[in-house]
Structure formats: structure tokens, C-alpha cells
């Protein structure tokens, strides 16, 4: 279970890494399928502005390098890493409000993609935006990523 601002890494084939109820937050999975190592980060905000030291997984710009280092330490080959990201929804649709609350999801997704690009990690699949919350499951054995939303069948990304 990966809660807000946390990350988890596993090389145990039996494990499934899970984040439940992502709204504007991002679930970022990184894996090296050949080495059988996967990691999942639960990102809350786009930019750390130098506040990310204690909780790197909380901010997109610090979460990405932190997750890369962690999966590499667990045995992944950096050159084989691939990413899947989901979340970043607009939970409360409002055509009139310009509250920054409503833009966090988009900014989280954009910043996460930018950080992956800067680290030259290819994105295998992406399911972001929209107005539905998501729960995500990463199966370590197969590096499959399943996403569920309320009232919809699970999707395999």
C-alpha cells in the first residue's frame, strides 16, 4: 500500500504495489521487467521548490529521481526502466472557477512527464486527466499495471 507522499519498491514476484483513491495525485510506476523490479510513487504536488528533502515522493520533480535511484538500488538496470503513470484528475469540474485546487491534477501530470523526460525514462502508458478517481495496482511479477475507476471495468495499461 503506497499512501500519499510515499513510495514502495519490490523485487518479490509475489508482490502487488497498490495506491487507492488517486484524485489529483499521480501514481507513478517504474520497472525493469527483466530484473523483476518495480516501484510505485504516490505524488501529491508538482513542484518541491526545495522543500522535498524530507519527503521526496510528495513532489513530482523530486519523486522521479528518488524513485529511479531506489529501483536501481533494488537491482533494476537504469537503461531498461519504463514508466507508467495515472491519476492527475480534475475531480471537481467547474467552468468558472480558476482556483489552483482545480489545476493541481494537470500540473502534477505535466511535471511528472517533464521529470521523466529529463531523466530519459520512456513512458510505456499513461492514463491521466479526466474527472474520475483511480486506484492503481502494479504486479511485480509481470510488470502489469491495472487501473480501476468507480463504475468502470479495470484497465490494463
Amino acid at each position, binding site marked *: 500500500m503506497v499512501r500519499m507522499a510515499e513510495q514502495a519498491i519490490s523485487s518479490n514476484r509475489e508482490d502487488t504495489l497498490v495506491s487507492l483513491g488517486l484524485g*489529483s495525485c499521480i501514481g507513478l510506476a517504474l520497472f525493469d521487467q527483466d530484473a523483476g523490479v518495480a516501484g510505485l510513487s504516490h505524488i*501529491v504536488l508538482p513542484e518541491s521548490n526545495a522543500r522535498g528533502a524530507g519527503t521526496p515522493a510528495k513532489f513530482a520533480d523530486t519523486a522521479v529521481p528518488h524513485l529511479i535511484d531506489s529501483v536501481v538500488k533494488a537491482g533494476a538496470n537504469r537503461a531498461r526502466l519504463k514508466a507508467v503513470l495515472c491519476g492527475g484528475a480534475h475531480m471537481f469540474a467547474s467552468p468558472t472557477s480558476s482556483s489552483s485546487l482545480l489545476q493541481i491534477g494537470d500540473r502534477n501530470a505535466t511535471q511528472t512527464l517533464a521529470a521523466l523526460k529529463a531523466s530519459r525514462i520512456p513512458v510505456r502508458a499513461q492514463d491521466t486527466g479526466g474527472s474520475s478517481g483511480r486506484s492503481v495496482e502494479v504486479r511485480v511479477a509481470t510488470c502489469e499495471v491495472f487501473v480501476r475507476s468507480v463504475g468502470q471495468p479495470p484497465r490494463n495499461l
Partner: protein
Amino acid sequence: MSTEPLYTDMQLSAIQEIANIGTGNAATALAQMIGASVDIDPPQAEFVPLELASERLGAVETPVVAVLTPVVGDAPASILLAFPFDAAASLCGLLGTDALSDMGRSALQEIGNILTASYLTSICSFTGLSVEPAPPLLAVDMLGAVVDGVLAMAVADTDRVLFLKTAIRIEDAYCDFGFLFVPEAHSVDRLLGALGL
């Protein structure tokens, strides 16, 4: 992550007392609107580490109808009403509408309006701060998903979030729902400063 208390017990009980008066007024306003008796639990003020925050409110995948009212002014905050599906259905039934219809949705938003406006009026008169509600927004989704953006706004500079939560019950309707007040990062200090604490 630091664990020493950010605020003293006295400061927390002052905040809790404001919330108590606010929810009391809100319950009275709701009772007048729907013509039924409304009960509230005493509000609990609690600092919760971010990673525990969602689950402290309930099972994160519980489907809810959520009404979010952004609070603007001197102490920005969010007020979130979370209705479990059966509570939304029975409350809308009491108002002669269906929770999943457009009419039901606007009825729930209107309830958000009334509760929030009376709650904030108490905060304003107690603290002398100026805060007011923006139009309420509605979402139907998992509890965790509707609350995470609200939490994100409160934790930019800190890893803990202040929750003022209470349960509101409408006895005749078997309706029980959550009322959550989450001040943004600097608003807690402003509220306390206005009280001279």
C-alpha cells in the same frame, strides 16, 4: 518527518471551539431548511500526517457524493461534505428529489452552501477575519480521490494537515454524513493570530 506538536493543546481547543460554534450554527440552518431535526457530533481538531490523512476519514475507496466549497479571503480553506450514497439518497428523498438527478445534485450543493455560509459566519464573527464561500462544486467518486486535492492544498509547506471533522445526522432521514474543514497551510496561524493565541 517531525513529530513534535506544532500547536499547544490550548490552541487546538480554541480552534475546536470555533468549529463547535460554527457547526452548531450550520446544523440549525440545515434544520430550518429541511424541517427535520439535525444532530452534530462535537468537532474534533486533529493534526494528521499526510500519509494517514485519507484513511482517517474512512475507507478510501468508499463511493461518496462530495460537495466541495472553497473558502476564500483572509484564511483560505476548503470545506468538504462527504455523503455516502445511501445518505445522499435519503437526504434528497426528504427534499423530494433524487440524488442522481441534476435537481438532486443542486439540492446537495445548496445544502453545502447553507452549511458553509453559516459555519463561516461564526468564524468571521469570532475571529474578525474576513472569509467567504466560493460556489460549491460537486463530484461523485471514491472518498480518497475527492479529498486528495483538498489535502494537497493544505500541505505545500508542511507534512501534516489540520482536520476539523464532525458528523452531521438527520434523524428522520437516517442520513449521516461527514463535514470536514481543512485550512490551507498558513490559515491555521492566521486563525490563531486573530484569537491572540
